[in-house]
């Protein structure tokens, strides 16, 4: 009922799809059939499939060079190099397919790990406030003040290199934004009625955090997560240049983007296509997240107007 006053478009648009199919689709699946979930899901699925099937669908070996046919513009369907070739004549489409593998793995692991650490610590910090909060926030200040470049060089010096170390290097600072945002919200949530109610019913702190605080932190975390996904893919490239993580012969979107930097005005296709892939990853995840929020948001249910 509230949504009709605020957002008539949403109220009209969403049910249409629901009513059309209601009769044929099992009830459990119905909430999932929203344009956002379908669109977002297909984008993400497509990117994942691209990575998984890279060896089968790539027209060329991603590392096969041909200096004679370097920097060819996209030929679309008119030639063998659909999206053109790079500065040493490698096929961009094939590198995009293979690049999906490392880039998506990095994006997802970094976001999930740093999200879990950050939101967890943030919830604890904000919920308990006082001394615990003080300690955790001091830690945040120490880590956030570190120049990422210096941290990466130091990590590399101590632990050597590899994909795992690269992820560690990225996670080392990326949990901070989640932590700060989650803490800010938790500080406010801890004084709310429903938390007080739970506490008076004898719920323990751990249970309150898991049951009442964390679910309310998820949306903001989602937003940071999509942002972090893009930055993780892009910074992978800069860390690879430091010799940390992925060696240069393994194609990644970040690496392709960085290589293309020098050619922005002369061979735009080098940077554009990997850039688009990053954009679509972010877009797909966002659409999925938005769609799923409508299903899982506790308050949407509470106020009795979950849109599914």
């Amino acid at each position, binding site marked *: 009922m509230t949504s009709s006053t605020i957002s008539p478009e949403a109220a009209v648009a969403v049910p249409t799809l629901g009513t059309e199919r209601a009769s044929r689709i099992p009830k459990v699946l119905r909430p999932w059939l929203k344009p956002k979930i379908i669109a977002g899901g297909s984008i993400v699925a497509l990117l994942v499939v691209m990575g998984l099937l890279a060896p089968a669908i790539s027209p060329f070996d991603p590392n096969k060079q041909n200096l004679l046919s370097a920097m060819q513009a996209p030929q679309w369907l008119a030639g063998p190099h659909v999206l053109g070739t790079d500065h040493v004549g490698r096929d961009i489409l094939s590198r995009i397919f293979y690049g999906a593998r490392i880039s998506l793995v990095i994006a997802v692991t970094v976001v999930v790990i740093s999200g879990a650490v950050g939101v967890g610590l943030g919830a604890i910090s904000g919920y308990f406030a006082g001394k615990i909060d003080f300690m955790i926030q001091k830690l945040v200040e120490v880590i956030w003040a570190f120049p990422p470049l210096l941290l990466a060089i130091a990590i590399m010096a101590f632990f050597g290199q590899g994909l795992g170390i690269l992820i560690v290097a990225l996670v080392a600072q990326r949990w901070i934004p989640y932590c700060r945002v989650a803490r800010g919200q938790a500080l406010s949530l801890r004084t709310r009625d429903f938390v007080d109610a739970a506490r008076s019913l004898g719920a323990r702190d751990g249970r309150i955090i898991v049951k009442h605080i964390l679910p309310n932190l998820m949306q903001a975390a989602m937003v940071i997560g999509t942002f972090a996904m893009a930055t993780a893919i892009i910074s992978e490239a800069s860390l690879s240049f430091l010799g940390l993580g992925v060696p240069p012969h393994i194609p990644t979107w970040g690496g392709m983007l960085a290589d293309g930097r020098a050619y922005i005005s002369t061979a735009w296709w080098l940077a554009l296509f990997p*850039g688009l892939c990053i954009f679509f990853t972010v877009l797909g995840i966002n659409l999925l997240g938005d769609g799923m929020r409508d299903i899982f948001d506790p308050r949407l249910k509470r106020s009795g107007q979950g849109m599914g």
Partner: protein
Amino acid sequence: MLAYVIRRVAGTIPVIILISLLVFMLVQAAPGDPADLLLSDEATAEDVADARARWGLDQPVWVQYWKFLTAALQGDLGTSFRYADPVLTMIAERLPATIELAVVSIIIAVVIAVPLGVWAGARPNSWIDNLGSLVGLFGISMPNFWFGIMLILVMSGILNLLPSSGRDTYGIAGDPITGFYLLDSVIKGNWRGLWDGLAHIAMPAIALGTNMMGILMRVTRSSVMEVMHEEYVTTARAKGVSERAVLWHHVVRNALVPIVTVVGLELGTLLSGSIIVETVFSWPGSGQLLISAITSRDYPLITGTVLTYTMAFVIINFTVDILYAAIDPRIRFDK
């Protein structure tokens, strides 16, 4: 509250000492030797040994750290290996440029992102929401360097509207008063200098602000959407409060906590200097200083710069916490 403030201030001292120790150990442990990097290609082993002795690198790390700490407590952060200038002076010279850029880009981001985010959050799935989200996502996935170069190509190259780099045109600004060019120009009534400063700051500020605008817009939207369903909003509406008043008085105020957090975080990042944007636009700020310090392993300069940043974060986080309490009176720290 006073007790809380005192505790917070006192609490930063261990943080500063801890970070100075960490940075000190890390820079020393990092591979690469300042003597190799800073001396000429033709330097001999002797020259290298001389330089190391002059910089005190021939002593054990703990002796070096103790010397640094005692000097730092007296307000001396040492002398840069590379520039042979006092670290504190160097940072003081560079910081205004960085702060100026950070403030302008924050303003750009906030002015665009917050209204757009509130609007989108109040009307989810409307065309404005969809368009706004698309813009926001573009901002989020746009690499800084790519956007910076595109700006130069379009605004300076094709349109020939803005200068492609630097902070001012030689001979216009005159002697600095505060070190903030825009502010100085206003103080002096140097309008030509003000325009010059604005023309130079526009592109780097947009390049920096766009990313932040994306995330801020998304955070605002999600935060507003969340608050829209709170009971007090429904109640206010049921009482017959106008839609606009509900939105700006009840919703936005309650949605501010994550927004303030993100602005604080981003301001912190920006103050530590956006290395990429400062480099792309030849902006003489502290980010460029830090990157050159790291690549040449200029230990005192690295340590000094990082310490300055830590102080900035401590201050920002403190301000953010105070703002929390002002926005949401239920939030308390002093218990």
